């Protein structure tokens, strides 16, 4: 492999832009964990739902030119699906307010993963589909970037910014941050903590849905298309630290960078290995992750 600064710059841009989308997944996982105190293993299936919804809306309703109209609708639909599923499947696991069977809830999400995945296979078949994109290639200086990828990056950043504003600037966001620090505290403050769980679950899976919808034209749409990004999401959690929002962002970008630099300058078939090597390295030097324990939802 020959090193050129141009290739390096292109690789860095590619790494950062895909990293932002990985970070969306990680944010969703971390966010749900912080509030509901449960790992949602079905995250990739909500990514998958987001990608199918985007596919359906673009292909059958709006056309590729109006992908940006389909995007918020896909995200909203995933949010609503999440808020319907949470009270049916997750909330009963927690029973009384004090006795919380967190482990059961986690197992339930694994069952949900299987259900949704097989449902998708049954409904849509095992085919790989793509909504297509008519976005032109964008030149960043002398460097060409795929239009759909660049749009995914920009919208991913916008989604993260919106999420951040929601947390930092609204009452609802303050209650979410407070709940992440003390469930008892928000209960004595008079917050309906079960409704908060429901909303948090919806928002968390919507983040995955947005990632799925944005990457639908970049990768293919199929029943297990969420697996890779979910694995990346969990890698980022290890890198950044569970329960940390800055950790999810920095971890996502770091993972994207390591993977694309490794693929470009070492050997591309081993792309996924570089990420795992980074995970191992972090586990050795900082087992709680870069931002673990010290920062949470701040």
């Amino acid at each position: 492999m020959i090193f050129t600064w141009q290739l390096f710059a292109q690789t860095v841009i590619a790494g950062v832009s895909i990293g932002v989308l990985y970070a969306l997944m990680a944010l969703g996982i971390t966010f749900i964990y912080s509030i509901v105190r449960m790992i949602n293993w079905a995250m990739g299936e909500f990514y998958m739902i987001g990608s199918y919804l985007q596919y359906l809306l673009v292909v059958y309703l709006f056309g590729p030119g109006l992908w940006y109209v389909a995007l918020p609708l896909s995200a909203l639909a995933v949010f609503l699906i999440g808020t319907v599923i949470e009270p049916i499947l997750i909330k009963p696991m927690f029973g009384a307010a004090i006795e919380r069977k967190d482990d059961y809830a986690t197992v339930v999400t694994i069952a949900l993963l299987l259900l949704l995945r097989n449902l998708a296979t049954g409904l849509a078949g095992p085919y790989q589909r793509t909504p297509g994109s008519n976005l032109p290639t964008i030149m960043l200086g002398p460097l060409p970037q795929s239009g759909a990828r660049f749009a995914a990056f920009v919208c991913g950043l916008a989604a993260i910014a919106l999420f951040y504003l929601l947390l930092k600037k609204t009452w609802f966001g303050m209650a979410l941050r407070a709940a992440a620090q003390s469930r008892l505290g928000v209960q004595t403050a008079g917050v309906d903590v079960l409704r908060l769980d429901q909303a948090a679950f919806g928002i968390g899976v919507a983040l995955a849905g947005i990632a799925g919808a944005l990457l639908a034209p970049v990768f293919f749409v199929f029943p297990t298309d969420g697996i890779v990004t979910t694995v990346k999401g969990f890698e980022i959690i290890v890198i950044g630290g569970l329960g940390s929002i800055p950790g999810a962002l920095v971890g996502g970008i770091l993972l994207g960078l390591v993977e694309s630099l490794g693929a470009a300058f070492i050997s591309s078939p081993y792309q996924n290995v570089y990420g795992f090597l980074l995970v191992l390295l972090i586990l050795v030097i900082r087992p709680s992750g870069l931002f673990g324990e010290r920062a949470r939802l701040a």
Partner: protein
Amino acid sequence: MNGDEPDGGEPILAVDDIHVGYQHGIDILQGLSLAVRSDRLTLVIGPNGAGKSTLLKSVFGLLQPHRGTIRFGGERIDGLQPYAIKRCGIAYVTQEINIFPQLSVAENLQMGGWLFRRDKGRLGRRMDWAYTTFPALAERRRARAGELSGGQGRMLSLAREMMTEPSLILVDEPTAGLAPNLVAQTYELLLAACASVGASILLVDQNIEDAVQHADYIYMVNLGRLKAEGPRTEFGPARVAELVQECLLG
């Protein structure tokens, strides 16, 4: 001894024969009944494991009694979620410092006003009240709550619960783990804060000697059942000494 009181009237809180446990088949409270009357400090004493904290958690809806009723202002509140009970006008000051360490002091107080968050005027007035009543918090309003000292943390816990101007405030062991010289000050602060919003108090305490001084009416519980009750006049120094001994021996 009976529960008659000279100035009886309807109690603000009436707990009637509640059975509560954390696990199926094991009841911590085994048919406990008591009443809190308005503008009074009702004290519940008893040894470790008597079920005092369980009582407060049950009243606040964190635990659900599977038998018996809890009435507040005549309405049944057992079975309600904590947020609904808070809305009725009950606040709960926990034994541990109950703050959001990563939020600022001001944000903590705002969270205390969650129930009337859309009423900016009231929120502002209550924040001013909190800062006037607890000047130490005013000085540190922008600091993260986690950076406060233990005493300031307790003040913030109390101030946050007082934001809603509750008519009944449940207080769990306010002096547990405090240096002896801070105990008197803590009770005074608590009483003054409650008096300023006109809240009745249901206090659970192991610091019997000090707490009895401030109480209007006293219940003694052990092993989930009522052992004795009466107005403070019936709890003279000799009887208190006897109770302390009984509590220590369990």
